[in-house]
């Protein structure tokens, strides 16, 4: 009996110790850099959500709806125009934070032209928003430039895998 109580006591002690250690492990995973990475990824999720439905309409996989198309394109413009520079902290690339981000160190290099690539996307999104509600053909005419702006930045600055 006493031996059994001793075992239970030790068990509880170990459980408490590991529960106490858990928040510490989480803290290392949720510092300023980790938060910035999550925030900018959330931004890309928004791009993808708005653009994805416009692409689906352009390809005939989703029914074209002029009001929805205009709203999606306007939202895309709004999120591409946010100044999110503060999310690109030093030491937040895919060598410093392996497995968490695909952002390559070249983004931070002196000869980086990621700013130009971001501007290309802004221009393409704006161009799309001017016509997205004017019918499917108008949408199709402008949407390619948006996807190609995403693609060109991924090609240079996003790793293929985590």
């Amino acid at each position: 009996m006493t031996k059994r109580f001793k075992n239970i006591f030790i068990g509880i002690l170990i459980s408490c110790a590991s529960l106490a250690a858990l928040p510490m492990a989480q803290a290392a995973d949720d510092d300023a850099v980790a938060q910035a990475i999550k925030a900018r990824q959330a931004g890309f999720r928004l791009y993808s959500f708005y653009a994805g439905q416009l692409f689906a309409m352009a390809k005939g996989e989703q029914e074209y709806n002029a009001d929805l198309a205009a709203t999606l394109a306007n939202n895309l413009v709004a999120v591409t125009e946010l100044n999110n520079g503060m999310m690109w902290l030093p030491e937040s690339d895919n060598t410093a934070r392996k497995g968490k981000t695909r952002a390559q160190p070249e983004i931070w290099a002196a000869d980086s032209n990621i700013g130009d690539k971001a501007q290309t996307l802004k221009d393409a999104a704006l161009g799309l928003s001017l016509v997205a509600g004017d019918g499917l053909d108008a949408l199709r005419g402008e949407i390619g430039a948006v996807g190609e702006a995403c693609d060109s930045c991924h090609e240079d600055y996003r790793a293929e895998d985590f």
Partner: protein
Amino acid sequence: MGQDNDSSAGMSRFEPQKVWDPAIRIWHWMLVFSVVSGWLLGEFRSFSTMQWHIYAGYTTGILILFRIVWGFIGPPPVRFRALAVTPSTLKKYAGKMLRREPSGAAGHNPVGAVSVILMLVLLSVQVLTGLFSEDDALFFDGPLASMVSGSTRTTLTAYHQLSSKAVLIVVLLHISAILFYLLWKRENLVKAMITGWKIVRK
């Protein structure tokens, strides 16, 4: 013909033979077209042409399937049995490979057989990974992409890209080997792949 009176000298040791059947010849040049166009449409992709990349990929996949069937039921020179080389036959042939004379194989020579298998395996990998790939910039997905998780999709897309580099290298090697046979060994394999007739050692 047939009489062996000067068998020690020059081309008389060789005779033309019909080696490649029409199906494998048509297959080969269709494969050249589908692989070259698929590769270019993938590497230099745009929203308006990406669907054609996927069609080129399906075409390549169907051609690979045909080649697998033909490897079992086709004529002897294209059977997989004829492609099965052992390290010793490979070593024996590799020793003679630099000689300035046609190999005269009645099908693939051992080094050629290895490269054929390599190309077929690599192109299968290319097609299979493509089926699960996703293009999240131009919003095109392979037909099976939604069957796997997002992270698997990302990984298979990365492999699709990696193996496209390997395909490029192997095709360039393939073409270099053909040029080597033409210019160094004076053996025109390209003509054989067009007409079916090949210079074969008696």
